[in-house]
């Protein structure tokens, strides 16, 4: 019997693929790079986004204009990128402000006693009681609409959910055994906060901040779409979509389809980045 030709393979050698953690990291990198690319391209696009060219109006998407052109002959791809980058800047600013408000209020509610806690919780209920979009309209109205109005409205209205998370997190930490033991061992309050609490809360805070992004961007676009946000000469995504409404019945579907898709992709990617970040930071789920 000649066995040399057929060896029974119990376990086939497989090229090492990425493990779960590596995969998550890859998602994170992919999402971040893509978003960065949109922002940079949109910023660099400059005047192409507003240059009109009447010899090239109402073009269907083709090689030279992948997203088509509008009724003034403006390249839709350039407009979309520009609009998306504006949205991302506003989203960045708004999430940072909202997250800082959330951190301060959340920490105050959890540490400054029952009365402060009750006031802040009541305030969260109050802000969450007005439908978010209506609150945005009200704030924008109070500030006389325009870019300033939309930026402020989006920035100061996104804190309630994150405040709740941070408050809950700190309240839970205060009851945790290792914090209590640290106190019994005679460590100073300052040291406990710096050494034991902040390392635990900070990652949650960062993830919360990234996950605020998609909300902020969607709300900015919605508010602009309704006519409260960016002025019409700006190529905001909301502006593009609300203008496209007038041309839909003429069959110019590309005016709305692609810009909306880019907006949706950006939101999805931010969710992906935030979700991956959460998985990586939390040791319980890093290998999932």
């Amino acid at each position: 019997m000649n066995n040399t030709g057929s060896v029974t393979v119990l376990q086939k050698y497989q090229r090492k693929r990425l493990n779960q953690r590596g995969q998550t990291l890859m998602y994170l990198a992919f999402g971040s790079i893509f978003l960065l690319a949109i922002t940079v391209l949109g910023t660099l696009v400059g005047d192409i986004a507003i240059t009109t060219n009447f010899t090239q109006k109402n073009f269907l998407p083709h090689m030279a204009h992948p997203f088509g052109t509008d009724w003034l002959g403006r390249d839709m791809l350039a407009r979309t990128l520009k609009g998306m980058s504006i949205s991302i800047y506003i989203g960045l600013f708004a999430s940072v402000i909202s997250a800082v408000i959330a951190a301060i209020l959340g920490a105050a509610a959890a540490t400054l006693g029952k009365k402060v806690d009750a006031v802040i919780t009541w305030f969260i209920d109050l802000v969450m009681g007005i439908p978010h979009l209506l609150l945005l309209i009200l704030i924008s109205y109070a500030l006389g609409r325009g870019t300033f109005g939309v930026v402020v409205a989006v920035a100061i209205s996104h804190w309630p959910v994150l405040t709740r998370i941070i408050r809950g997190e700190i309240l839970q930490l205060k009851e945790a055994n290792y914090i209590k033991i640290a106190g019994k061992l005679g460590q100073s309050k300052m040291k406990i906060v710096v050494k034991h609490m902040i390392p635990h809360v900070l990652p949650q805070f960062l993830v919360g901040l990234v996950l605020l992004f998609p909300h902020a961007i969607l709300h900015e676009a919605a508010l602009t779409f309704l006519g409260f946000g960016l002025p019409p000469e700006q190529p905001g995504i909301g502006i593009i979509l609300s203008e496209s409404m007038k041309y839909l019945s003429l069959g110019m579907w590309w005016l709305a389809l692609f810009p909306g898709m880019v907006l949706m992709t950006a939101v999805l990617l931010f969710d992906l980045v935030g979700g991956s970040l959460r998985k990586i930071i939390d040791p319980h789920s890093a290998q999932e």
Partner: protein
Amino acid sequence: MDIGPYSGILKYIGKSIIKIISLLIAVSILSFILVSASPVDPVRAFIGEIGMANMSAENLNKLEAYFGVNTPPIERYWNWFTDFVQGDMGTSLLYRQPVSSVIHVKFMNSMVLMTTAWIFSGFLGYIFGIVAGLYRDRWIDKAIKGYSLLIASMPTFWLALVLVMIFSVWLQILPIGLSVPIGVNAAEVSILDSIKHLILPALTLSVIGIANITLHTREKMIDIMGEDYILFAKARGKSRLSIIRNHALRNIMLPAITLQFASISEIFGGSVLVEQVFSYPGLGKAAVSAGLGGDAPLLLGIAVISATLVFGGNFIANLLYGIIDPRIRRGSAYE
């Protein structure tokens, strides 16, 4: 003080109502501050730019007095508040009608739209969630989960536009906008027409609303299917259907219903956008017109009404929690 098995609930209801009233007053104050802080001049908004130029100083003064331009804000709020309690919300500048009657009409329109979407999305989301949770990691779960995640990132108004493109422009089977066909008197609209004009907005809102409840129900279903009592039921040889009916449905219904009542705020936000795209004459569209047209009384009225809806929804969610879950009903969760 323990009078009967329901004293806990009664106490809870009383407490909640007081809290809701305090929150509503706060909402009205907050909205009032925001509306008053606006640089939009009510007199200018009322008579327009041309009117301003042609108006005599005497009449201007009269109007300013009427709108209370020179009255201190606290007094103005108090006047508004006492009127509001008596059912008078002021006069809408855009519609030249009492705000209460404008809101009444718009509210009815919006309610038809939102209730339809609310029931559809709740029902479908619940079923999708159960199916996905039951067949975890199979293709149907992946499809439902993928759909939900995609929808959760989708801008509501863009989905509305896409649906218009497909059903109205391309297939031409449904009307583009307006709840009333052009050239037809509002009173003569047949029910069929109104339904036709309701389909697309309601569809958009439902599709958006499904995502959240599906994902939550799915999570709960997976949790419950991993419980020991489900394993024991399987070991007893019970069929899959009877396990779902007897052991899973009730347990999952609780979070689903709570979530659905708590989602009124989001549905309202969605309806603002959807109504704008489809020119549907509801509260959302009125809020946008009021904001753009400087109609402060109407905006204020809508803010308070919508907040009442949201708080009411949350309150019902908490109450139902107790009615469906016997542990909470008998226990002290309401304390």
